Every structure is written in structure tokens, then in C-alpha cells.
């Protein structure tokens, strides 16, 4: 009580100063209070953006790539399953809009120019084939006496032919005849035609060609050939409003997942060189305003997986070539019977675009890039889509991973896919002979396999 009475009553307007002399206040070394930002748990747009930013920071700050992938695919929600091999009409247009891809017909110009010259020999295999390991640029002037065995040099004037067409053709014909003529197989079961003959032929052809060309291409010698691998990729693109359920009315990103099983796959430790610069614009991406379910595409909720065919620690983490075999449901005869001839090429294109996008994007994620941390160098891969007789070649360059609604706004980059039409490798197999063998297709296949970075 005495202490209370000792204190003088303050009149309004007066301030009671403490004992210490109020000098100049020392500037605080760090802010005393935490920064004033939007709350995390409120039901508002600011809170939602705050939560998204915190999630992005968590993924950016993740120590390892496995941790990043785990956080990226942690939240499971219903998502559209995109099938690369689909019978949906005009699927390649829809897939291009989902993946922001430009389709350029024909092969990229580098495939025509800087390839090692091939000898356009006759049917007799040359004996004096001289492979020159390491040399890749075509030499301008060659002494004609050096290649006394070559008959007609290729388009490069006077270049050294060190790749024997006859040998390659005989390899391909051997594989084909072994599977379809020499081996005694029973009739294929219903809808198992593709596993009966074209599947083993493709496997045999690719393995023998890869082993044969490994001497010329050191990248192939260090590569890894996968049989029936799995390739998965999960991404967001665009936004939609949730229609049914307890989350009705909320704005959600549209989620997609590709689960692909190519027949064969070649993975290499070094990346293929870029075809065109990162920011090049070679065409337009189709914009489709309808929902993806009109394609038709269906939603399911399951694990969000990102996988290239091997785990992150594998040294062969870049992709080289994929080989796809079309299933029985997508045979040419079926389309012709239903008078849908224009959909035949659509099937090849949609398979090439979707599979290659998934593979290159998964490779980029394995290097630590994702939609908020866009790629700094383009990722290039190749694919061959076939149904046993007809071959179509695709080359894909991934320039951007930023496809979500916020990141796509100021992103001028587009992914590019070069693709050819399907051409037959042979006409018919009769009595132990392969009639009408097409050298162009084999040449393109060999070019694909010989593709390698400049410094090798």
C-alpha cells in the first residue's frame, strides 16, 4: 500500500519515464517480430498462395533428388491417365496441347548434315570395310585408292565409306527371317499377334544393331539397353474447378500421369546434343478449350511416379533411343476397315509425343529441374514407333518443364518434336526371301543409333 501511495498519480497526457536515460535507441540487429505475411490456415486466396509458396520452398530446399521427387508427388488426388498408345481420335492434337509441344514434320536438319557417310554398296557385302573409330566429321577429299572396295560413295563427295550397308541389311534380314520363316511357331493366340513375330524381331534387330555399331559409337558401348522398362511422369497443366465431392467449387490444377512401357530403351551416361537453341520457336501449340475428359480421358487416383527406367543413382541417367511396338488393337487393317485412314498416322504421332515427353521430362527431374525450377539446357531423346513392318522416327527436344497455371504465363519456350510418317521396312517375306527391303528406313535407324554428343 505504501508503495502504491508513493507513486504519483499521472494526469492524462503525462508519461511516466523509467530510471534509465532515454538515449538514442540502438538499431536492432535483426527484426524483433516475424514478418507480417498472410496466414497459412485461413480459407482465403492469400492463404492458399502462402501455402503453395511454402511448399515450393520446401522442394527447392530439398537436399537430394529423391527427396525432391518424394515431395513433388506426395499429395495424391484424382488425375488424368494419359496413354501414349491410344485409339482416341485426333489424340496427338490433344497431347500436344497438354505438353506444350510443337510438331515439325520430317527429321531435324542435323540428321541430314553431320552424319557419318554411309556406303551405298550393292547387295554383295564388302570385305574391306574399314571402321574408323572416333572420326565423325566427313572428310572432304579422300584418296579414291583407299576405298578400292567401295562401289558408289554416298552423297558426300568423295567421303570415306566406313559403314557397310550390305552387312547391316543382312543383319536385319537375318533377324526377320529367323522370327518369321525359319522358326517353327504355332499360330498366334487371339490378339497376341504382336508378341508372336514383330516383338521378338524388334528386340533381336535392335540388340544386334546396337552391338554392331558399338564399335563406331563409343556412347553405345557405355550405354544400357533395357528390355520392357517402365517410364512414368506426373505433371500439372492448366486449372479447373472441382465439380463433385467435398472439395466442390475449389480451383485445382489439372493433373496428368503417363505410365508407359516401351519395348526397348537405350540409356546413356552423356546427354545428346541440342538440336536447336533453347528459346527457338518453330510453330504453334494447339489450344483446346474443352476439358480433357472429352478426348476421352479418365481420372484415377494412384501413386504419382516419376521414373526413367532406372533409379536416380544409375550413371546412365540420360536417354538415347526408345523403341515402341504398337499393340494389336491399333493395327493398320483395323483402321482401314473402319474407314479411319487418317488416324493411322495419329497413332504413331501420339505415341511418339507422349512417350518422349514423359521420358525427357523424367530425365530433367532426375537432374533436379521441375516446374518451378525450369531446365537450363535442352534435353533431347529419340524414339522409333513401329508395328513390325512400318517404322516412324521421332526426335524430341524438351525446352521447358513449366506447364502449371502460374509458370506458363510468362514462359515463351515450347517443346519441339520432329516426326516422320510411317514407312515400311520391307514389303513381304516369302520362301526365305525378304522382298522389297527399304534401305532408307534402315539408314535412318542406324543414324539414330549413331547419334552422339560432339566431344565424343
Amino acid at each position, binding site marked *: 500500500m505504501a508503495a502504491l501511495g508513493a507513486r504519483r498519480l499521472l494526469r492524462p497526457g503525462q508519461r511516466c519515464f523509467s530510471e534509465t536515460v532515454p538515449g538514442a535507441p540502438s538499431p536492432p540487429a535483426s527484426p524483433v517480430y516475424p514478418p507480417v505475411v498472410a496466414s497459412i490456415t485461413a480459407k482465403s486466396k492469400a492463404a492458399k498462395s502462402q501455402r503453395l509458396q511454402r511448399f515450393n520452398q520446401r522442394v527447392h530446399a530439398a537436399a537430394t533428388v529423391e527427396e525432391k521427387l518424394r515431395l513433388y508427388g506426395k499429395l495424391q488426388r484424382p488425375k488424368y491417365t494419359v496413354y501414349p498408345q491410344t485409339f*482416341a*481420335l485426333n489424340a496427338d492434337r490433344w497431347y500436344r496441347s497438354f505438353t506444350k509441344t510443337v510438331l515439325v514434320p520430317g527429321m531435324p536438319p542435323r540428321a541430314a548434315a553431320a552424319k557419318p557417310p554411309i556406303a551405298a554398296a550393292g547387295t554383295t557385302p564388302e570385305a574391306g570395310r574399314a571402321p574408323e573409330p572416333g572420326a565423325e566429321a566427313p572428310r572432304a577429299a579422300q584418296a579414291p585408292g583407299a576405298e578400292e572396295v567401295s562401289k558408289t560413295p554416298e552423297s558426300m563427295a568423295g567421303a570415306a565409306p566406313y559403314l557397310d550397308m550390305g552387312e547391316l541389311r543382312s543383319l536385319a534380314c537375318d533377324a526377320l527371317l529367323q522370327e518369321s520363316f525359319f522358326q517353327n511357331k504355332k499360330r498366334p493366340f487371339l490378339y497376341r499377334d504382336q508378341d508372336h513375330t514383330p516383338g521378338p524381331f524388334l528386340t533381336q534387330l535392335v540388340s544386334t544393331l546396337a552391338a554392331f555399331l558399338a564399335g563406331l559409337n563409343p556412347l553405345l558401348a557405355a550405354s544400357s539397353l533395357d528390355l520392357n522398362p517402365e517410364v512414368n511422369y506426373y505433371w500439372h497443366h492448366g486449372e479447373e474447378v472441382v465439380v463433385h465431392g467435398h472439395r466442390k467449387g475449389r480451383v485445382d490444377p489439372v493433373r496428368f500421369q503417363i505410365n508407359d512401357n516401351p519395348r526397348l530403351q537405350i540409356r546413356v551416361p552423356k546427354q545428346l546434343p541440342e538440336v536447336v537453341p533453347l528459346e527457338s520457336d518453330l510453330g504453334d501449340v494447339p489450344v*483446346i*478449350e*474443352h*476439358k480433357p475428359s*472429352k478426348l*476421352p480421358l479418365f481420372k484415377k487416383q494412384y501413386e504419382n511416379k516419376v521414373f526413367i527406367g532406372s533409379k536416380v543413382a544409375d550413371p546412365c541417367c540420360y536417354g538415347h533411343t526408345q523403341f515402341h511396338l504398337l499393340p494389336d488393337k491399333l493395327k493398320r487393317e483395323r483402321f482401314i476397315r*473402319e*474407314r*479411319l485412314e487418317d*488416324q493411322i498416322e495419329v497413332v504413331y504421332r501420339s505415341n511418339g509425343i507422349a512417350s518422349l515427353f514423359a521420358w525427357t521430362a523424367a530425365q530433367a527431374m532426375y537432374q533436379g529441374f521441375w516446374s518451378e525450377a525450369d531446365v537450363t539446357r535442352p534435353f533431347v531423346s529419340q524414339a522409333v514407333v513401329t508395328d513390325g513392318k512400318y517404322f516412324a522416327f521421332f526426335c524430341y527436344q524438351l525446352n521447358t518443364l513449366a506447364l502449371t497455371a502460374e509458370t506458363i504465363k510468362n514462359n515463351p519456350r515450347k517443346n519441339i518434336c520432329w516426326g516422320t510418317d510411317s514407312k515400311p521396312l520391307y514389303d513381304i517375306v516369302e520362301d526365305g526371301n525378304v522382298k522389297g527391303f527399304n534401305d532408307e528406313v534402315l539408314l535412318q535407324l542406324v543414324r539414330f543409333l549413331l547419334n552422339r554428343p560432339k566431344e565424343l
Partner: protein
Amino acid sequence: YPLFQRGGPQLRIFRPNFFMLAVRPGVPQPEDTVQFRVSMEMTKLDIRNYLERIYNVPVAAVRTRIQYGANNKRNHRNQRVKKPDYKVAYVQLGQGQTFQFPNLFPEKEQDSETRSFDDFRDKYMEKEKQKQEGDPRRGGVPDWFGL
């Protein structure tokens, strides 16, 4: 349909008793897609053959689903009243054809006669209403109210 056994004749239906009703889609559909309400017994093959043979419409793909009619409404006797089920078919046209459901109730352009008649009618109705109302100075109070 009679069961098919190997070697038997192919089922042929002449003058089918099916009806297909083209409807306006509730959600926007792609340009080549037409939406129909069909009989519950029709299959995708039936729909394709119906359109191709009878109407010469090239059909690329057909997808069907069955819409369940709700059973929640109650009548005056508190019995549940069911709305009937129906099958919806989404037909994608071939050969690049497109279809847009037409506007069945367009705004008609009124000629001068109907416009003047409408004006005359509106003015007459206004006059009648004013006759019905009482003296505006009484503020809406009826005239039987008073001393």
C-alpha cells in the same frame, strides 16, 4: 437379340423400332461430337449402323453411358416418383465433319405492324390500370375508408 453361334446367319434388322433423339449438350462438347438420347437396348454397333445406313452420316467413334433417373421426388401420397433412365450416346463424326446444335428459339425480327400493335397494347393496359387505381392524392387508401 437371338444368340449368335458360329456358322449361323448374321443378325439383320430391317425397319428398326429404335429412335434416336439429338439433344443439346449440357456441357460444351468438341466440334465433331453429337449427343443423342437413344433407347436403352441400343448398343454402340447399333448406333453406328443406324446412322450410317439410314442417314448416311459417317461415324468415326461412338461412346455410350446410361443416365440414372433420380427417385427422390415424392407425390401427394408420399410415394417416390422415379424419373426414367435413358442412354446417352456421344457420336464423333468422321471425314472431318463438325456439328453445332442449332438455336431452336431465335429472336424474331418484329415488323412495323407488330411493333405498333405491341405499343398500342401496352398503352391500353396502362390506361386500364390507372382507371382501376383511385385518386393519387389519397395515397393508396381505398375510397370506402372514411368518415
